Structures are given as C-alpha cells and as structure tokens.
C-alpha cells in the first residue's frame, strides 16, 4: 500500500491509465465550471476592475478593512483569554472530589455547550443594552462588543473546561498517585502537578479553539457589532461593490485562519517531544485523522466530543 489509502491498492498499468483519463475528464469539467461561473459574473458586470479595485485600495483598507479587522481580532483575543480563565476554573472544579460543586459545574458546562452562541449573544445584547446600560455602567453603544465577548467566553470556556478535564485524564493516574503519596491534597495535586502538564498538552487544541472563536466573532454582525463583515458590507454599500467587498472579507478570514491552523500544526509537532501527553490536534472543529490507529488519543477526543465546530 504505497498510496496510504485503505480502499485502493497500488495501481498497475491499467489502473494508472484509468486514473489518467479520469483526471483529464475532471480537469476539463472543472475548467468548464470555472469558466461558466466567470462568464456569468462577467455578464452581470461583477468582474469590472473598478469594483474590485474599490474593495482593496488604500481607502478601503484605511477606513473599512483595518478598523473592522481590529475589532474582530480584539474581541477574539479578549474572548480567548477570558474563556481560558473560565475553562480553567470550571475544569478544575469538575476534577475536584466535592460532588455537589462538581455536579453544578457539569450542569453549567453542558448548558453552555448546548446553547447556540448566537442565542447567547442576542440575550446578552438585550441584557447589556436594556438593563446594564440604563444604570450607567456601560455605554449602550458598547453593548454589541461586550455581548460578543461574553457569549464567546461562555461557549468556548465550556469547551476549554472539557479540554482541561480530558487533558488531565490523558496523563494517567500515576501523576496524581505520586502527588498524593508525597502528601499533597487532591487540590494541590491538580493545581501544581496535573493541570500544568495538561496545559502543555492542550496548547495546540487551545490554538485551534482560537480559530473557532475568530470565526464565531463574525456572528456579532447579526447583533450589530462593527466587526470585519459589517465594515465590509458598509464598504460595499458605499461603493456599489457589495459582492467584491464581502469576498475580500471572506479571503481575509480564510487567510487568518489558515495561518493559525498551520501554526497550530507546527506547535503540536514541537510540543510532542516535550511531554508524555498527546499533543496532536485535528483541524479546528474537525474529526481527527488518525491513520489506522484508533489509539488512546483519538478515543479521548471522541470521549469528550471535541469535533464541535462553530460558524
């Protein structure tokens, strides 16, 4: 099996000819589809150079794309930090032996994992703008911004809490037993021995969670948060190139996430030599591609249902 696929044996001369012919047909079909789409777009005047130029020139970047991008990145970064805090606290509680508290943390985590982020955002937006803002604690214009961060924190914090729990479980019970033997309490063992190790194991998974947060921050568009997508729409409305400006926004999102995913993979390779735990990570929100080895790591992932994705 040179191809690495279960389904296909190494091709012989006949199969190779068949692959070549299929390949040619697929290339021709693909070229035809692309040509058809471009022709249709050209017919509608969507390929006019000025429309595209107005979406990527200096003015577009200066007044629309960069400000939008700053808000997107800023809210995503803040949400990453706060959800990490939330996740560490709740992951810690879920690993503690005190049952009532643990049950409460389980309910909280499961609740926020089950409720769609948009529903959380809509609720907090109304809460901040109708309840908090009148008290003067918050400017009503900031309500979308804070509701995006809060909703992202609660959902992703719950996911990270599960990551912490599974990270600690993947260490094996020897670590805890050793800590207890030298006289530590369960809390000390978690805080000083297990969670620090689990964090190293988790780092790549955390980074891929950042991709999900970044994508989710675009949900803020629906409640009026001035992020990249909303700015692009304004750009398109102003210059009559709505298609071009939204395509540019999509390309920016894709490139950002692509780079982040790539960095995550590098990091996970680097870290794998530094810890006994499993640092391999699937693409954000994707099922892990374990090659013919349903080993410990993939079972842990499946166990906590990490293949959770968001828009």
């Amino acid at each position, binding site marked *: *099996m040179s191809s690495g*696929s*279960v*389904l*296909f*044996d190494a*091709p012989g001369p006949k*199969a190779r000819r068949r*692959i070549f012919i299929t*390949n040619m047909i*697929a*290339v021709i079909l*693909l070229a035809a589809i692309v040509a058809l789409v471009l022709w*249709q777009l050209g017919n*509608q005047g*969507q390929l006019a150079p000025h429309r595209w130029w107005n979406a990527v020139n200096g003015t577009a970047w200066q007044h629309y794309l960069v400000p939008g991008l700053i808000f997107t990145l800023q809210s995503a970064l803040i949400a990453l930090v706060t959800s990490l805090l939330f996740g560490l606290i709740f992951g810690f509680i879920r690993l503690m032996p005190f049952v009532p508290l643990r049950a409460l943390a389980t309910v909280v985590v*499961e*609740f926020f994992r*089950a*409720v*769609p982020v948009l*529903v959380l955002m809509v609720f907090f937006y*109304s809460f901040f703008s*109708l*309840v908090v803002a009148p008290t003067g604690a918050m400017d009503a214009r900031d309500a979308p911004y804070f509701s995006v961060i809060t909703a992202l924190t609660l959902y992703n914090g719950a996911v990270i809490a599960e990551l912490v729990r599974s990270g600690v479980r993947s260490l094996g019970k020897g670590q805890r037993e050793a800590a207890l033997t030298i006289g530590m309490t369960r809390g000390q063992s978690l805080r000083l021995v297990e969670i620090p190790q689990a964090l190293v194991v988790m780092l790549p998974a955390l980074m891929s969670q950042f991709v999900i947060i970044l*994508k989710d*921050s*675009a*949900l803020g*568009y*629906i409640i009026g948060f001035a992020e990249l*997508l909303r700015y692009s*729409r304004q750009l*398109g409305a102003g210059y009559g190139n*709505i*298609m071009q400006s*939204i395509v540019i*926004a*999509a390309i920016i*999102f*894709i490139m950002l*996430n692509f780079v982040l*995913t790539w960095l995550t993979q590098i990091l996970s390779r680097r870290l794998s030599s530094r810890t006994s735990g499993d640092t391999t990570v*699937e*693409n954000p*929100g*994707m*099922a892990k*591609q*374990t090659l*013919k080895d*349903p080993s410990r790591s993939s079972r842990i992932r*499946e166990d906590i*249902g*990490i*293949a*959770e*994705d*968001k*828009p």
Partner: protein
Amino acid sequence: MDGFISLLGDYAVVEAFWTNIRLAFFSCIAAFILGFVLALFRISPVPSLQWVGTAYVNTVRNTPLTVIMVMGTLVIWGQLNVTFSSDFETNFFILAVWGLSLYHAPFFCEAIRSGVNTVPVGQAEAARSIGLSFLPAARLVVFPQALRGAVTPIGNTVISLTKNTTVAAAASVTDISAVMQSMIELNPNLMIYIFLTVAFGFCLIVIPIGLLTTWLSNRLAVDR
C-alpha cells in the same frame, strides 16, 4: 409569569423551533451527501479530484458561517438575482439550507474520512485476497466499518449543524433566534424567561442527539 405564558401564545415559538428543525433536517441530508462526495474525492487516487476536495475543505471550513449566509442573501440573491422560489420566505429558507449545507459539508467529509482511516489496511487486503474486486470490497468490507467508526464525529457535526441553524437569521429566515430577538425587544422585563425557554429548547434538541451518538458509537463499535 402570567405575562410570559400569554407571550408564548402571542409569538410562534413552537413554529420558530420547527423552522430550525426543518433547516437542520434538510441541511443534514444535503451536507452529508456533499461531504460524502468530497470524502470520495479526497480518498480517490485521481490527483485533480483530490485537489478539489482538499481545496474546498480548506477554504470553506475557514470561512465564518455568517459570511456564507450574508453572501447568500446580499450577493447570490441581492446582486446576482438567483432565486429558488417565487415565495419570499421559501426562497430565503432554501438559501439558508444551501448555506448550511455548503458550510457543513467539509465537516461531514472529514468525519467520514476519519472513519475510513480507522479501518486497518489488513481488512482491504483480506477482502482483495478472497477475490473481491474494488466495488464489493468497498461496499461489503471497508465502508460498513468506516461508517461505524465515523459515528461520533458525524454525531458531533449534526449537533453543531443543529445549533448553527440559528445563523439562518442572517439570511432573513424567521427562526427561533430572530423570534427571540423581537420577543425581547417588546418585552424586556421577561428577558430571562424568554432566554431560558429558547436555551432549554435547544438543550432538549441537542442533548438527546448527543446521547444517541454515544449509545450508537458504543453499540456499533468495531471490536478490534
């Protein structure tokens, strides 16, 4: 509390949830079919098909769903005048189903591919050595095991798709999140009850799917 009960009567909460369930149902089928085709592309030995599959997966899974939905309404419908139905509401519903399906297809594709990867090479080799040709080997030996191995990631994708149906609000579909928004706007004092009703509704839909997935994956697990 009385005000809240009468509020539920004023708004079509159940109908709105039903919209989300319908969105999830149709998108799941379409996304699964598309994801299956993509997985076949990526597994196939044909370079151009592999390239198409990989390019699609890498592009779409890095695009926010909101961007896809907005593109559907503002660009596909608004700019390019593509309509799926003369009825306004049906048109946006179909657009949202397309958006959800196109977005989730890569996730189904990767779920299926990870299932195929759980099948040991020995299974395919054994199938060939007893004389099965390509299609029978795929149909009788590899795919049954692959789909069993893919139950958990497919279940997780179905769950996130169900939750993501709320994003259809960005494509002008009156789903539960849109109804929730207008309910709260007019009855801010009942905000908490409205939120908890919607949230509880989602728990009611999502948690059983999760339990079913776990049960199925344990029941269907291939003993190796």
